[in-house]
């Protein structure tokens, strides 16, 4: 078999092999069992004592969400002001300026919501201080928030009838001390040993082979890059993210970073099985997610390795595949795998430019973010999947002649209302705002804005449409990658994507927790032979059908006008 393809397959298998024990470890951490990291207990006790938190205090779903939202609001204000005033703060050897308020708004939200959409370049838009104390800090706590919320959901599933989703503060602290920090240390070390900078020195200058003198940005990057991969954050230290030779120096670091993207999201699926003691359910969920993931990967690898037909027509051989916007040290297959991994998980880091993907692959990564539940963002991926489960449970419950129930709790009008709202929300945010942008481009290209709508798009026609669609899809999915052809650092894009970011983050967290809170409060119905088992392959198929149908029906016209139109006119 082709070396590139075997590499990709090995990489994915290795990820699953590592994720399984990690899932068990995560379940053990949160169910309070003994683990390898028990020595951190005093550290956590210290944090709780200083913060006046009783980690054993029970919380119902409303208290749980209130705690989550309050601390997130605090972080937003903190991040916003630090970014505006970063030029006056220390650790700015390159003398970078403070951010404009609309950019700071976008950036603070973007990192707070685990999206890391970047309308700036790290080298010139941030200082070492904000890189560390805003960006890296938020990368840890936003991923921690995702895990903590998910554990709340697990608690609801675990108990027969309960008000208590557990203590948010306890889970937040432990997800950072026990999971994110230790893993980041390992990954950061691997990166640093392979050449990623980890010091505080400012720009260095080198003379290239051509004899030009070039300034090279540096900084304490390794640690930040580790958490940006592990925490499905994705916002790079450098502007071009993991395509940058210092952010991702070689094939080995690329392997480490690819594994890091998928590791925790997959581990959390297994953790579900261990934590609530339903391993079969976890396997079915993993199966459905992996099924779509593998299909998406196969499509992208195929099209990227095949090359661009426009170049074929010129009579140029493309033995390495479509290499526009890709790094020679990774190759087409590994870049295609990364493109699917990063969009499946709402990570958003890139090791090649998505804008340069062939049309179908570009469409697949957009579609992947529209689904946003194939492993998904740390914690939130499973929450999104939970919404699909609720809808699948409802329809299939009817189809077997029982009023629908999930894990022994009846799914009724209120839960369906919330689930339906969330399903609506992403369609509304993505399509609504893309429509707004398309409208501005079509009808008011010359309006006197800082950047005229007519100048937003670097590519005309279908591809330009895909760029706008990608931007909002990425914002809604809290993914953060971009079709970088778009001129997005201006008030229109900073503010609209900021709104999409907030709504696309918090409502899909609030909704599943609210549903879980309501369900867990209901009387428990024991399983009978007439109960539809949600841990069966059949139900997995049903969920898969719901995911495909809802996504296809919501987005097919938009995809037809962007990637599909481009594909059919190119091939």
């Amino acid at each position, binding site marked *: 078999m082709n070396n590139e393809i075997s590499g990709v397959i090995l990489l994915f298998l290795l990820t699953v092999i590592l994720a399984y024990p990690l899932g068990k470890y995560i379940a053990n951490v949160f169910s309070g069992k003994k683990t390898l990291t028990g020595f951190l207990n005093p550290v956590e006790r210290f944090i709780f004592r200083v913060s006046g938190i009783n980690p054993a205090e029970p919380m119902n779903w409303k208290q749980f969400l209130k705690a989550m939202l309050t601390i997130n609001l605090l972080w937003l204000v903190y991040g916003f002001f630090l970014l505006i005033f970063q030029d006056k703060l220390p650790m700015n050897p390159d003398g970078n300026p403070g951010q404009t308020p609309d950019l700071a708004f976008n950036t603070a939200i973007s990192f707070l919501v685990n999206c890391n959409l970047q309308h700036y370049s790290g080298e010139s838009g941030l200082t070492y201080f904000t890189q560390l104390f805003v960006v890296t800090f938020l990368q840890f706590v936003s991923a921690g928030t995702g895990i903590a919320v998910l554990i709340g959901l697990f608690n609801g599933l675990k108990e027969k009838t309960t008000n208590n989703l557990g203590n948010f503060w306890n889970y937040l602290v432990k997800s950072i001390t026990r999971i994110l920090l230790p893993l980041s240390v390992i990954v950061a070390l691997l990166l640093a040993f392979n050449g990623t900078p980890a010091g505080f020195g400012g720009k260095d200058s080198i003379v290239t082979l051509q004899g030009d003198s070039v300034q090279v940005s540096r900084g304490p990057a390794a640690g930040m890059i580790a958490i940006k991969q592990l925490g499905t954050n994705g916002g790079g230290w450098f502007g071009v993210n993991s395509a940058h030779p210092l952010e991702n120096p070689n094939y080995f670091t690329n392997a480490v970073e690819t594994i890091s993207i998928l590791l925790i999201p997959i581990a959390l699926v297994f953790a579900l099985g261990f934590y609530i003691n339903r391993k079969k359910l976890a396997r079915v969920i993993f199966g459905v997610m992996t099924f779509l993931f593998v299909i998406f990967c196969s499509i992208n690898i195929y099209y990227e390795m095949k090359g661009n037909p426009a170049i074929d027509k010129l009579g140029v051989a493309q033995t390495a595949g479509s290499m526009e916007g890709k790094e020679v040290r990774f190759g087409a297959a590994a870049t295609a795998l990364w493109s699917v991994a990063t969009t499946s998980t709402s990570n958003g880091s890139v090791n090649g430019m998505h804008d340069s993907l062939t049309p179908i692959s570009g469409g697949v990564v957009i579609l992947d973010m529209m689904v946003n539940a194939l492993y998904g963002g740390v914690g939130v991926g499973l929450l999104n999947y939970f919404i699909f489960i609720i809808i699948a449970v409802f329809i299939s419950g009817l189809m077997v002649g029982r009023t629908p129930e999930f894990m022994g709790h009846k799914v009724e009008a209120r839960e369906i209302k919330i689930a339906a709202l969330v399903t609506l929300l992403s369609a509304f945010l993505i399509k609504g705002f893309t429509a707004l942008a398309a409208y501005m481009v079509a009808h008011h290209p010359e309006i006197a804005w800082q950047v005229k709508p007519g100048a937003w798009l670097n590519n005309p026609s279908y591809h330009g449409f895909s760029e706008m669609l990608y931007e909002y899809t990425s914002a809604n999915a809290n993914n953060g990658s971009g079709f970088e052809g778009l001129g997005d650092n201006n008030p229109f894009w900073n503010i609209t994507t900021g709104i999409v970011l907030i709504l696309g983050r918090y409502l899909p967290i609030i909704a599943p927790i609210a549903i879980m809170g309501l369900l867990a409060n209901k009387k428990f119905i024991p399983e009978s032979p*007439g*109960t539809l088992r949600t841990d069966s392959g059949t139900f997995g198929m049903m969920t898969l059908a719901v995911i495909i149908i809802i996504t296809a029906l919501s987005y097919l016209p938009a995809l037809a006008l962007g990637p599909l139109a481009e594909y059919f006119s190119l091939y």
Partner: protein
Amino acid sequence: MATKKRAIKLFEPELIGTAIRQSFVKLNPVLMVKNPVMFTVEIGTAVMLAVALFQLITGDRTQGALWYNTTIFVILLLTVLFANFAEALAEARGKAQAESLRKTREDTPAKKIFPVGEMEVNEVKVVHSSQLRKGDLFLCEAGDIIPMDGEIVEGLATIDESAITGESAPVIREAGGDKSSVTGGTKVLSDRIKVRVTTEPGESFLDKMIALVEGASRQKTPNEIALTILLAAFTLIFIIVCVTLKPFADYANTPISIAAFISLFVCLIPTTIGGLLSAIGIAGMDRALRANVIAKSGKAVETAGDVDVLLLDKTGTITIGNRKATHFYPVNGMEEKEFMQLTALSSLADDTPEGKSVIELAAQNGVQAKTEAGMSFIKFTAETRSSGVHIPGGMTILKGAFDAIRDKAAKAGNAVPAETAEKVRLISSNGGTPLVVAVNNEIKGVIELQDIIKPGIQERFERLRKMGVKTVMVTGDNPLTAKYIAEVAGVDDFIAEAKPEDKMNYIRKEQQSGKLVAMMGDGTNDAPALAQADVGVSMNSGTQAAKEAGNMVDLDNDPTKLIEVVEIGKQLLITRGTLTTFSIANDVAKYFAIVPALFIASIPALQSLNIMGLKSPESAILSAVIFNALIIPVLIPLALKGVAYKPIGASALLRRNLLIYGLGGVLVPFIGIKGIDLLLGLFM
């Protein structure tokens, strides 16, 4: 079954007329707004009408040809009408069923009893039944039609209830006890009864229930509400899809006509299930009614589909009527004929079915016993637990429970033969009831009484087990007997030596563990348990209290009816689920028909999406809209009859229905739309 005579054909010509008229009446937006999906279609229809009129007046052609817009308008109107028709037809069928019930309670003469003064001397006058009020007394004699629902206060009569139940065999009703209730419209065949009216005219229990069946006071069930929300959400998603398509198209420099927008929208929203949803609900109630069960609410029928535990009385449900004598076992070498003679004599005055069966069995063996002068009979009392006869000449024959006779024998100094004790134990452990016979307190032998289990009952329980329903037998028998019968009949659990409160406790216990319990009952002492159960089916012959307490009434008084009720409930949900799946799966093909048609002019490359090879953009859109409209009437029979329920386990059932209605829902419209396109191609 007795229900045949009320079966109404699916498309009864008379009903069709009413339903068509109603389809237009229902176009009233005030009524339509209750169905959000179809309401949006109606708005779309109105817009198309406006477009067509505008074109007619101004001659404007920017929105496509006039004939095309008019055709779209007509098809959309038909879509709404088809949906209305489905609902109207279901309602009309319900009404027709109700009407046939109501006919039984037309005005009839009533022999009202007027108390005269303070004395017990009463006067009887004939009045109209509509003049009877609650609490009035009336008299009925052989040949009279009972004018009102009531309770017998005096007397006993055989009554022909076929008008209500369709069952021609007469039933006995008598004062006191659980069989004292009579229903208006039924006919007294023999004897004479005095009845107290229990309801005001037009408010009788059946009247109220008939109104429910007619759909007049029908309320949406919780599950229906949840599904409506989900369908409304889908509709909103498609509003977003269609509204955002306008700027998308502007960006791509593609003009899209109003007709195309509205067609796309109407095709995408789940009109199939939206149009059939209320028809499905009404048809569910109607199916229950056709099984001769009147449900107090649609919710009760739905709940029945979820039942986990079924409480069934042994007698009449699992076994046929009462126990019968099956064997005689004389002891001490007594001749069998001689022993039979004794037992027959002892049973002469025994009016219980058991007693009669003893005489019957003896007669079958050629042994007759006659009442002779001088015999005096000993009545059964709860204290002595035995009955018998004194025969002139000093012989006393007693027949009764083993311990009662044993005590008497012991008192008289007679030993109990080991043979007898052994036989008694054996009979009991085989689910039988032993009766011991003694002459002058000396034990002569044992009679074996056995329950006869209804043929086919095991298969029904097996079916219930596959549905995931646990069956529980309730009996007054001792645990040993109960266990034996439970095993033979194949029920999962039993309550032996049951007192009314035992039923109640059992229901509570099951409910506490989250299960839904259904039970059937007829007596007043069943009322609390009927009220406590999630589904309580009372028999029409039962007392008023029992009927008020339950949430369904079975007109046939057939205890196995619960099983049918459970299936009807499941069918109702399945029909909703499968048609929803079908409706949404249809959208895939519709997208492939309409999306390329919309953009064909400006983006020729998208022609590759026209995988059906539809002729032109106009014919593609028309075909999709026509298919969308036609599928509603095509599915009306399925909606009204319900999707068949097969007890093959939840996962297998889901697989089956996903394959038929999910995959089928994806494939059928591809074929349908292509077919319509080919037909249209002949004209366009």
